[in-house]
């Protein structure tokens, strides 16, 4: 008769520790975890490569052009892309190498007669690589966001940060699975090819962005200020990635014949991964909005309340307002007496949230525009436009006369900024010769005509 396993007394080390306070046990456990992490990090082959990639990332992102600087979510997207494509893939390759360390060192007999299972052994070998990769990512992100913080107060898109950490975990786990089962020398190369091809696949596969691109999410784009991260979708993707990582670590652990994880645990992990994949793939979203959504009526806005036109932005861009308010005051003085100047101007999409008409000034190139850029935006937004009924039989817009184009040029001149456009209008030199009052009268009449699909009146002689 087979005696039940539990009846067999175990070695002294496995004896429970009765009488030891829970606090003391917890502190001993924490101390051991710290020691294991310190040992593995110190001896990890990932230490130097990831340190180097962190330094390179900081230098590269800190010296890059200013297109994305200041927009916290775009800064995070830039770092996310670097982390996933460079740090993550290199970490995956190192994990592939590290997963084969027991076989290379001849430790399999000792490990296969141990009590911890293969998955724990793999996890111990590769988890420090994930830790190092995450640290590298966070350091580069801190450096890049530090640069953003100089020009714009904001907060990182935390969902994207969490998803990046999850992508790194999945990449390391994929490396571990490949490294456990492939010959040690070829495993890192195969891992690099697999992880890179997986990341690039959505670009080449039709509809890949909405399928594969959501399962292996490397977001290689910048988001318009009108967009904001979709935390629910990002966190769902993070959960999926962690389920896959667990599954891959269990697959890697199966390589340890004596202490392989059970098929039951493998099946449970596979089921969890399949369910989480469903949560990622089933919700239908528009192209380009896999992990971001367009801001809508419910999103908070903030507006200037000084003289001149009211300027409204999304609440998280509120630190734009002081500089824009200053420009709006100057603009109000320069446009005193003009009737066509809009009373409310707004960032893209804000009009919907305001619930009242507002002229879209477009997106600034930086979240806190210079006085000149803010004035140019106000001038551009104030240029008379053909009214909504100005559509000809052929569908073409009626209006947009050459003379009306002179108005922004005149306003720019009054504000002392380079002409936004219209300086080449034939009417401009003649308008310049007029007094301000006569300029205003003509511009009001021209704007009125433009709105009603008519030709503006001729510029009076000086």
């Amino acid at each position: 008769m087979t005696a039940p396993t539990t009846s067999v007394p175990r070695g002294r080390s496995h004896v429970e520790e009765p009488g030891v306070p829970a606090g003391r046990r917890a502190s001993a456990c924490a101390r051991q975890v710290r020691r294991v992490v310190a040992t593995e990090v110190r001896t990890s082959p990932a230490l130097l490569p990831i340190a180097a990639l962190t330094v390179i990332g900081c230098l590269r992102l800190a010296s890059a052009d200013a297109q994305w600087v200041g927009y916290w979510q775009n800064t995070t997207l830039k770092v996310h892309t670097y982390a996933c494509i460079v740090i993550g893939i290199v970490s995956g390759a190192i994990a592939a190498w590290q997963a084969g360390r027991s076989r290379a060192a001849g430790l399999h007999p000792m490990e296969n007669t141990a009590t911890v299972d293969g998955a724990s052994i793999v996890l111990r070998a590769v988890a420090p690589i994930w830790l190092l990769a995450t640290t590298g990512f966070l350091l580069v992100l801190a450096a890049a966001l530090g640069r953003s913080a100089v020009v714009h107060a904001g907060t990182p898109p935390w969902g994207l940060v969490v998803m990046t950490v999850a992508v790194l975990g999945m990449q390391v786990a994929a490396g571990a699975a490949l490294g456990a089962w492939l010959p040690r020398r070829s495993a890192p190369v195969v891992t690099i090819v697999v992880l890179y091809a997986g990341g690039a696949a959505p670009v080449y596969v039709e509809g890949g962005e909405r399928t594969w691109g959501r399962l292996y999410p490397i977001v290689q784009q910048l988001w318009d200020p009108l967009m904001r991260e979709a935390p629910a979708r990002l966190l769902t993707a993070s959960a999926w990635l962690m389920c896959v990582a667990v599954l891959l670590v269990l697959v890697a652990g199966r390589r340890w014949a004596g202490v392989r994880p059970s098929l039951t645990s493998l099946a449970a992990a596979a089921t969890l991964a399949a369910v989480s994949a469903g949560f990622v793939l089933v919700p239908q979203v528009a192209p380009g909005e896999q992990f971001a959504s367009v801001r809508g009526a419910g999103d908070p806005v903030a507006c200037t309340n000084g003289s001149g036109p009211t300027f409204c932005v999304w609440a998280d861009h509120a630190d734009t307002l002081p500089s824009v308010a200053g420009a709006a005051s100057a603009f109000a003085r320069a446009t005193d007496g003009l009737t066509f100047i809009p009373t409310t101007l707004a960032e893209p999409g804000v009009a919907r949230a305001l619930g009242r008409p507002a002229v879209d000034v477009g997106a600034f190139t930086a979240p806190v525009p210079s006085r000149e850029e803010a004035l140019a935006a106000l001038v551009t937004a104030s240029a008379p436009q053909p009214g909504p009924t100005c559509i000809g039989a052929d569908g073409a817009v009626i209006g947009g006369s050459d003379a009306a184009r002179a108005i922004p040029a005149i306003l720019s001149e009054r504000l002392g900024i380079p002409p936004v456009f219209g300086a080449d209008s034939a009417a401009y030199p003649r308008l310049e010769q007029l007094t301000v009052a006569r300029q205003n009268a003509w511009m009001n009449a021209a704007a009125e005509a433009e709105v009603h699909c008519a030709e503006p009146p001729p510029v009076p002689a000086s």
Partner: protein
Amino acid sequence: MTDALVARGVSVRFARTEALRDVTVEFTPGVTGLLGHNGAGKSTLMGVLTGLLRPTEGEVVFAGSPAAAGQPGNAALRASLGLLPQKFGYFGNFRVREFVEYAAWLHSMKPLSVPGAVDRALETVRLVDRQDATMKSLSGGMAQRVGIACATVHEPRVLVLDEPTNGLDIEQRDIFRGILRDLQQRHPQQVTILSSHLAEDIAAVCERVVILQQGRLVADAQTRDLVGVDADAEVSGVALEQAYLRVLGARA
């Protein structure tokens, strides 16, 4: 229930080679030497006893439960087992203490007991002063001693040492024998199996000898009985070697 580790009717076949043939042997508390030429089947028997190899026929029983690889008692055997394999591998960048801690972790030791157990294991193998040295900086003999520390850190009830003195110089082998005697004095109930083809090592530490020849068990006796000396007399390596050759010759 005793801690006996039993191989019962064990045969192992690899393709056309029969590495073990119907071996039945019971390992009880004390040090048992496993003696045999190269290729006699010592490492295969070690593999079967430790669960690394599944026997083609027969069974391994530990403390009354079938304990071969994949059998219910295997987990209990692994929890009670310390193994120093023939080719002891290690991570070169680990420090000595870190590597023994790694072995403790592999055996799921309670965190609270690890520091003390590692201290004791390093004291036993006389490597306290080298605990901060990296593994790759150690000589072969010292590395083997770390191997013993790893195999004993969790105070196993079954200790399996597969050719532990292979390639060691005289001084290191002497140190090794001393360590083994210390261990046995401290844990007299421990089942220790020492595989070697060096009769001198077996004679120095084993009270019982099991001899294998071409995969068959050809002798299982008290060392003194095999050599033919009194209970008080020391068994010399030369005497055991002669007895061993006599057994093999008689079989041939």
